[in-house]
């Protein structure tokens, strides 16, 4: 796909493929409060980086038409405001009320430790970092904070977004969002600061890391060079212990063997009671450093922070920002994510085949929604599954509301 083709493709994508009704259903939250959608800020990045903020829409139709007309390169979702962003953005009382609690993980933050790629690139090997990140965050968010409605979305190139959509999460204040993400961002205070590895939540995270660590170690070859070795050894505060391990490192070549040697030595020392409070948890410290999710905390903290919407098309890669099923996150391959041109080819192919099979252009093929003809279908299904479980929450609150109004 060339750059000048992109707007044309985008045009087709917004006409035929973007799942407007599901999208509208999501952000209306059962229409318990109509403001949820009416006062929601959207912002568009148009051709040549023209950026327009504070768009809002009254109906699904308006939303759909506007997007098809403008054909934005990127759609960002902002907060729900106390009044309509489009009309009242300049009023002094205009302020953000609520927004999904969001988490952003970007592969570039792993550049210090990943050895396979760097910058914008991402491969199946470094995707394992994301697998670990999603597993750790899924567990912590669900178990520790008790939220259930998590939408995981591929960010289009090299990262993942998480939208936490439970009502209590959407209503959090910025200070509460800050505490939440600081709780999760074990590594954020710089690499050198050790965290309390005895915290039950951190312990569980370390457990998850351990499950994946051997594969990660083999793929990333963390202990391949002397430079990498010394970086890892800097987590061991005891010089003698470091010496012992270094000696073993020189006997072995592969990362796997070296890591085994390290854990054996540390365990032996631990059993003999030779480790002090500084070195006792050095293996855990290293595991966290090498595999714990690296989070962009500022995205989470701001109530008014914009985040790229699901089902956007990444202008550089052409990939769709598709929802991910966290249960099978290890099967997700960022390099086989459907791209806009593949999808459009798929529609054309399908229509052509249908025409060949049923010569007289049968009605049934036309009635079929276009996304169902393509590999986007799987992603829309994941989105719909998320919506179904979300729907149960507003069924409850709708009943409550009608009880209050005494409308039967």
């Amino acid at each position, binding site marked *: 796909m060339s750059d000048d083709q992109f707007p044309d493709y985008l045009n087709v994508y917004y006409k035929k493929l973007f799942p407007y009704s599901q999208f509208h259903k999501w952000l209306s939250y059962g229409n318990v409060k109509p403001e949820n959608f009416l006062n929601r800020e959207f912002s568009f990045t148009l051709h040549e980086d023209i950026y327009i903020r504070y768009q809002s829409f009254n109906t699904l139709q308006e939303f759909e038409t506007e997007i098809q007309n403008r054909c934005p390169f990127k759609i960002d979702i902002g907060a729900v405001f106390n009044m309509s962003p489009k009309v009242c953005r300049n009023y002094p009382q205009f302020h953000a009320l609520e927004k999904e609690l969001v988490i952003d993980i970007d592969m570039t933050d792993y550049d210090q430790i990943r050895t396979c790629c760097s910058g914008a690139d991402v491969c199946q090997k470094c995707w394992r970092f994301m697998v670990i990140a999603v597993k750790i965050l899924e567990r912590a968010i669900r178990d520790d*904070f008790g939220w259930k409605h998590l939408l995981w979305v591929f960010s289009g190139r090299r990262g993942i977004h998480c939208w936490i959509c439970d009502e209590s999460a959407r209503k959090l204040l910025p200070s509460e969002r800050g505490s939440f993400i600081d*709780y999760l961002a074990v590594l954020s205070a710089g690499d050198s600061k050790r965290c309390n590895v005895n915290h039950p939540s951190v312990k569980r995270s370390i457990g998850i890391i351990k499950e994946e660590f051997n594969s990660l170690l083999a793929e990333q070859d963390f202990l391949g060079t002397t430079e990498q070795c010394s970086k890892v050894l800097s987590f061991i505060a005891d010089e003698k212990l470091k010496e012992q391990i270094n000696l073993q490192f020189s006997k072995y070549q592969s990362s796997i063997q070296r890591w085994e040697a390290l854990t054996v030595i540390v365990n032996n020392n631990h059993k003999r009671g030779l480790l002090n409070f500084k070195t006792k948890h050095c293996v855990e410290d290293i595991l966290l450093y090498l595999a714990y999710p690296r989070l962009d905390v500022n995205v989470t903290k701001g109530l008014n922070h914009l985040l790229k919407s699901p089902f956007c098309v990444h202008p550089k890669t052409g990939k769709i920002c598709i929802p991910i099923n966290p249960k099978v996150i290890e099967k997700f391959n960022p390099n086989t994510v459907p791209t806009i041109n593949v999808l459009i080819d798929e529609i054309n192919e399908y229509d052509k085949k249908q025409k060949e099979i049923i010569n007289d252009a049968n009605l049934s093929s036309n009635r079929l929604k276009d996304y169902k003809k393509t590999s986007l279908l799987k992603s829309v299904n994941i989105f719909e599954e998320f919506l179904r479980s979300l729907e149960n929450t507003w069924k409850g609150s709708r009943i409550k509301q009608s009880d209050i109004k005494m409308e039967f």
Partner: protein
Amino acid sequence: MNFTPSRKNVVLEKLQKTSYDHDLQLYREIPDININLDEFEEWAIERLKVLQILEQLSLKGNTSNYEDFIKSVVHEIKKEGLKHMHKLINGGIYKDYNENCDARKRDLCSHFILRLIYCKSDELRKWFINREIELFKLRWSLLSKTDKLKFLSLNNTNYSAVSEEEHQIMADSMGSFATAGNNNEYFKVRWTQVLDLVRNRKVYLCDGFAYVIQTDVISGVCQTFRSELSQELVKCFQKFSIISEDERFGAFIKYLHQSYMGKNYSVTENMSTLSVNTIDHSSKSFPLCMKRLHVVLRSEHHLKHQARQQYGLFLKGAGLPLEQALVLWRSEFTKKMDADKFDKQYSYNIRHNYGKEGKKVNYTPYSCMKIIMGAVGLDEYHGCPYKHTNSQALKQLLEASNISTQSIQEILNLSQNGHYQIACTKYFEAHNGVSPSCTAINHPNQFFEESQKLKGFNIESNINDSQVNDSSVIDDIENNEFDQTMVDFVDKMDQ
């Protein structure tokens, strides 16, 4: 409190049900009752004594073992005959409900009276809040578990008890936050109520609830209490001018804090009046913070604004008259700038501090609290050396002061552990060979006055000493040089 004499016992009965149903409270409602003026004063003074006991004992520095600290406070309160607070602290001693209510009423009223007295300045407010928090913590720690829970539910803090069942399931997870002691009770609360604990991963979370160990519960409640009290004191201050006009107790609430918080040294009653001629000698009796400023002034011939404020006001409190102060600053500053610039930029400020310019307020010298709480930037010399200087530099300062290495080490340790005022007191002892008459130093001018007293300092007989100038680090300046400047200056003033 209602200061108009009208309401009757009807109100009182209602209050007994709401305000007096717990030994401990957050003082959220102002009592609407009648008390007579004697009670007004007596109760306030009683509470003030309690707060003072807390301050003195915590300044003594034996807070490392909290249980011992509690014991010594309770003992002292009993010794001072503050029986109402003593019984309230010990909880549940009153069998008679009315008597119990009476103690709680005293607690409530005295707290609000002291609010009136301690709302007047930032420093007073800080002092009062810190003491009230100390008292609150102490009283909390002596409550029974049921009383703690009752307190938490009465004050809408949303904490609930952790059931046996939950406790068993979560024992391991919660256990990682247990402290060595055996008092490891847990309370359950929505995680958004304890954001700091969550942020620092200091609490176990499950399903949106934080399982908070009792020592942490109190830090959360104290946080609430502190911020509420701080806001209320500011509000109180806004109304202070009206309330203090009440002739029945106006004078009482205006001046009580002075008789009990120590002197503020705004008016010098120094037996030895300081002068430019004697200052170098006297500076040996200065506390370290001021001694250092003096040295820097003499060697750099300049001090930055905050340092000029801290040192200038101290000198005023120590008895340096305005004219002499001008001479001192002028003689130093003009070594680096021309006299014109000094007169334009600096002399106004000095006169201002002495209440001769602008608002004409007679400014008070900084107390230790104010100096310790202040911010000190790089290349600035004001502040408290025990707090704001790194240990290397502090060591050098102390070594220049001619005290034993052992004392230096003790002082360094105290300062590293955050006991700045005790470190200063230790320095006083090392320097003068005896302890100050009070428990701890809490004002630089107090340090100076006490050391002067010990030396039986007499200006006249010591002028010669200052000219001899033995091991002092300070370059002495010829007296006639001062005189000449003085003459010049006086001439100029006359013109």
